[in-house]
């Protein structure tokens, strides 16, 4: 590396204030959706944000695209601070940062034709003047749709095709960074793979950087170079794909990985030892003191309630990385430990 990263996020915070009646008093409180999140994304790199609902992964994605404004923190894109960029100047970054949404039904205007949906970003940014229609046809071809369908409406397309339109719209302005918020979770299994392949191809062809928000751990593993695991508004573990999936150190990451059902059970491979978390994620209005995961953690001790574990470089390094160079691996736990027994790689029988 050495050169400046494409995107640098430091200590990002987003609190949603609200008022609540408590007894006879009106009390001000905050939903602490994102509470001190930091990461970097380099050109052509893919960062996966995983976690359960309410962990702040979607809010983080919206903050980076500046669809929402952070409470505090810093977002630097190509060396330029865009954290509190004025609304009137947001258009400048929108050309470089685009978003793909989860729901291909509600994210396309049903009264606009595909042509008009895809021409709008070109007109807004004054691109391909005079040959917009030509460009739209190229875009449709790029995402695997028939360019002759330019005059059709979204309702005439299936879910997978609509998601392709959403992808074409994001690509229209030739962005450098795409934020994809659960881009395949609303699609059928057989269609998911098609869209994932399309995204991977576009990433490689155009050198796009991605922030990929998803709850499906298999999909993230397939697509992402770096993975950040979030819990209650914070990153609890960060590392490259191998580090997270094979050598996770944070108990929450281990629980998340072991909770995912495994198709290999059908192939006669004994199911992984399950870590069963008790209860639900606590409310982000009043997160637990110290480590936020301690209320569901089987390792929790006194220090976990009093001291918040910082996100620091892992100390369990250099153990059998299979000859791979070990990248940055950060974790936030007082008692980190690689539990290879539950994350042991399962072998596919020949």
């Amino acid at each position, binding site marked *: 590396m050495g050169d400046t990263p494409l995107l640098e996020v430091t200590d990002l915070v987003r609190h949603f204030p609200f008022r609540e009646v408590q007894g006879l008093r009106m009390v001000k409180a905050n939903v602490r959706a994102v509470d001190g999140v930091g990461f970097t994304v380099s050109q052509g790199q893919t960062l996966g944000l995983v976690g359960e609902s309410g962990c702040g992964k979607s809010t983080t994605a919206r903050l980076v695209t500046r669809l929402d404004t952070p409470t505090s923190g810093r977002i630097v894109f190509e060396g330029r601070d865009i954290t509190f960029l004025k609304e009137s100047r947001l258009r400048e970054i929108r050309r470089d940062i685009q978003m793909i949404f989860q729901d291909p039904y509600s994210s396309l205007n049903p009264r606009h034709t595909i042509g008009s949906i895809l021409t709008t970003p070109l007109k807004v940014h004054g691109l391909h003047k005079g040959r917009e229609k030509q460009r739209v046809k190229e875009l449709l071809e790029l995402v695997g749709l028939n360019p002759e369908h330019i005059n059709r409406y979204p309702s005439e397309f299936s879910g997978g095709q609509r998601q392709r339109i959403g992808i074409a719209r994001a690509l229209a302005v030739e962005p450098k960074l795409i934020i994809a918020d659960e881009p395949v979770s609303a699609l059928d299994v057989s269609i998911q793979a098609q869209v994932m392949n399309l995204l991977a191809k576009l990433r490689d062809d155009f050198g796009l950087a991605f922030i990929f928000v998803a709850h499906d751990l298999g999909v993230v593993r397939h697509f992402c170079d770096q993975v950040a695991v979030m819990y209650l508004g914070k990153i609890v573990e960060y590392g490259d794909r191998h580090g997270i999936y094979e050598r996770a150190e944070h108990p929450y990451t281990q629980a998340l990985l072991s909770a995912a059902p495994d198709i290999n059970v059908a192939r006669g491979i004994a199911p992984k030892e399950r870590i069963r978390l008790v209860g639900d994620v606590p409310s982000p209005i009043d997160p637990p003191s110290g480590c936020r995961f301690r209320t569901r953690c089987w390792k929790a001790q006194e220090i976990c309630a009093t001291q918040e574990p910082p996100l620091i470089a892992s100390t369990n390094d250099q153990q059998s990385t299979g000859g791979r160079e070990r990248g940055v691996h950060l974790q936030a736990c007082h008692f980190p430990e690689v539990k290879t027994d539950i994350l042991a790689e399962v072998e*596919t029988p020949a």
Partner: protein
Amino acid sequence: MSAAIADQLPDATQGEAHHSGDVVLDVKDLSIAFPTEEGVVRAVSNLTYQARLGRTLAIVGESGSGKSVSSMAVLGLHNMKRTRITGSIKLDGEELVGAPQSTFQRIRSRQVAMVFQDPQSSLHPFYKIGDQIAEAYRTHHRVSRAVGRARAVEMLDRVGIPNPKRRAKQYPHEFSGGMRQRAMIALGLVNNPKLLIADEPTTALDVTVQAQILDLINDLRKEFGSGVVLITHDLAVVAETADDIVVMYAGRLVEKGDAKEVLAHPAHPYTYGLLQSLPSPTEEQEELKAIKGAPPSLLALPPGCSFHPRCTFKDLVGERCWTEVPEWRAAPGLANRQIRCHLEDPVGAIAADEEANRG
């Protein structure tokens, strides 16, 4: 709970004994169609399967494959003025196709209960959780309010809701998603039904909570001895929870057999394609092996095999694939497996394809 009330409560595991292995739901040649302005939507065609007590049957398919529509017919949830149902659905020997509403009112909850995908919209927001469960119990049992309430608390306790007495007095919005789904399951099991139909019960839940709910359904099935029909699109969930599997495509059955065997060695090109398209949990792949194309419209099913436009094996058979609907037959060379495919040697063809992919 007072002793007098406790005496009146039957032990949930008692009641009519459930004999493990008995057929509880026998669906034969079921077809469901919805006439619309644009034509007839053939949601389900010639569906045949059986669910047994003490076992979990997974119905797998993509959206529009007919998996939910067929289960709704078991509970009589279709508007009969707009639905054409033919064939036979026998629940514990009783014919349900063409049965009057009174029959369904009698069997719902008592014989068969359903857990829906979205617990938020399937519980009544204005009534307390405990009252909703008590109501379901008292509809089928002539007991006092107090007994009904005690039964509700007992059920909440059974599904692992902490502090059930206090929770029974709360409203659905005061429950988290996972807790709400537990309450739905309590509601479903309150009358000790012989069959529990769970329609995507964990799709709306987070993965750590999903694991809890699947464990719960499994434990309760063992304890109560009911049959479970699990409708899902998630093959990994099937691998871990189901005994038997039926795979549906465009309203038709395409494969049926033992769940683990089908997932390990699929014999129908669609099942094989679905499994191939999943990202491998162990190997890193450059590209996912997607099934090309999209499922057909139920208004205009392709002639012959509905899957042929997307099938990569059709060249091995040829014309029959697009002229003739394959018959439902035993898969050659496999015990306890049925498929709907023209391939002469589906197992061999799929093995050859796997080999080619590896090489």
